[in-house]
């Protein structure tokens, strides 16, 4: 096995496209999972079981079925009902939705860890529910959940190669196509593997510094 630098050079243009696509999927997927997870977590505490039960059921269902199955479902089944997105959009939605059921549990733990006295003080001051959530409870919960959310961002990054299964040209797909076209798999796959570390490591450093700043 010989390492061929020219194969690396040839791969670079496609590699950058792949980096861009992977980062797009990661950033948008994270945003969806962070917001949607918060919606689920607040719904878990809804005053009526007509919200709590369906939300519990839906999130458990999504959490306990494989992301790959969800990807295929969204990409191949939804068009039969006239709902069609591009491969990347579908991938972002699937990964965001899937991970939102994990982040929901993270938020839930963070919210549960806010002392009951905080809710009571908010009640005693007659703060409206919205204000209680956004000014009192969530700011305290967020500090506790940042490290756990960060772990899911890294996990999400490592799940982005699944998107190649519906034809998204992310990093791994680019490497596979390059290998198939040139019969040189070693260089593209190695470069892609390194790229994942290079993205993941600064991301966790960033989260760690954020964590330090939030935890007073």
């Amino acid at each position: 096995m010989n390492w061929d630098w020219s194969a690396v050079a040839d791969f670079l243009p496609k590699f950058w496209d792949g980096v861009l696509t992977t980062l797009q999927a990661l950033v948008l997927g994270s945003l969806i999972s962070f917001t949607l997870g918060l919606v689920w977590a607040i719904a878990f505490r809804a005053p009526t079981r007509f919200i709590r039960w369906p939300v519990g059921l839906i999130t458990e269902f999504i959490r306990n079925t494989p992301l790959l199955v969800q990807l295929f479902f969204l990409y191949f089944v939804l068009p039969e009902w006239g709902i069609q997105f591009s491969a990347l959009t579908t991938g972002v939605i699937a990964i965001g939705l899937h991970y939102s059921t994990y982040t929901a549990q993270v938020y839930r733990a963070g919210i549960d860890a806010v002392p009951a006295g905080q809710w009571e003080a908010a009640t005693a001051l007659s703060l409206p529910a919205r204000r209680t959530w956004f000014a009192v409870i969530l700011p305290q919960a967020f500090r506790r959940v940042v490290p756990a959310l960060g772990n899911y961002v890294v996990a999400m990054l490592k799940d982005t190669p699944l998107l190649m299964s519906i034809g998204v040209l992310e990093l791994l797909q680019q490497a596979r196509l390059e290998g198939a076209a040139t019969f040189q798999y070693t260089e593209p796959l190695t470069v892609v593997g390194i790229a994942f570390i290079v993205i993941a490591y600064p991301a966790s450093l960033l989260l760690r510094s954020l964590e330090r700043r939030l935890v007073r």
Partner: protein
Amino acid sequence: MSADTNPLAKDLANPPVDGSELIRFDKVTKRFGATTVLDELDFSVASGKHVTLIGPSGSGKTTILRLLMTLTRPDEGTIKVNGDYLTHEEKNGRLVPAGEKHIREVRKNIGMVFQQFNLFPNMKVLRNITEAPVTVLGMSKDEAEERARELLDMVGLADRCDAYPTQLSGGQQQRVAIARALAMRPQVLLLDEVTSALDPELVAGVLDVLRDIARSTDITMLCVTHEMNFARDISDQVLMFDSGRVIESGTPEKIFGDPEQDRTREFLSAVL
């Protein structure tokens, strides 16, 4: 502090203090599981009065405050504040469990200070105090801040506006909590063992602030405390609780000096 410099004096004069009935419990029963904490409790408090609830722990004193603050609901019976049902509302001439909106309206008249302070740790001291007046009473930010500074001055913490609660001692936090409750201009102030979580040397500062409020305002106070000297100082009336009932009530002179019930005597000799 004289009445004309006290920021509370001018604000809290608005609820009429005519000695009329402000709080009424009518056959209120509260159970937790198999335990009956309050047993068909009847009692009332006249406006402007300072009432202290004493009795052994588990006798239901704190539950009364929590019921008034709507942190828990009674199983049976009714509670009225200022003539309005707190737990129920009248619809088509029938009494039905109160909706959230009704509860909020009646609850605005009530403020509470907790044993564990429960300040919002994510907000600076000033914002802890202005948050509710701005968002609930619709006060302008400037007005709320000016008032918050007056209240902080009154509790001796004028210089700590920009501190976070965790940077304060327990006694300071509790004084901020008192200012926060007063900022809502409640007619009734509920004090739930407000010195129990404090280091002994910090208790006096908090009690001094409360004495000052009791003396210089017309605010009605309902106080659960184990500080019998404080109870004697500020109370117009002392209620002795045991097993979810009021077994004796009267002026502090009578309850502390010459109680009628053996149970009261026994309790006082244990705590004094």
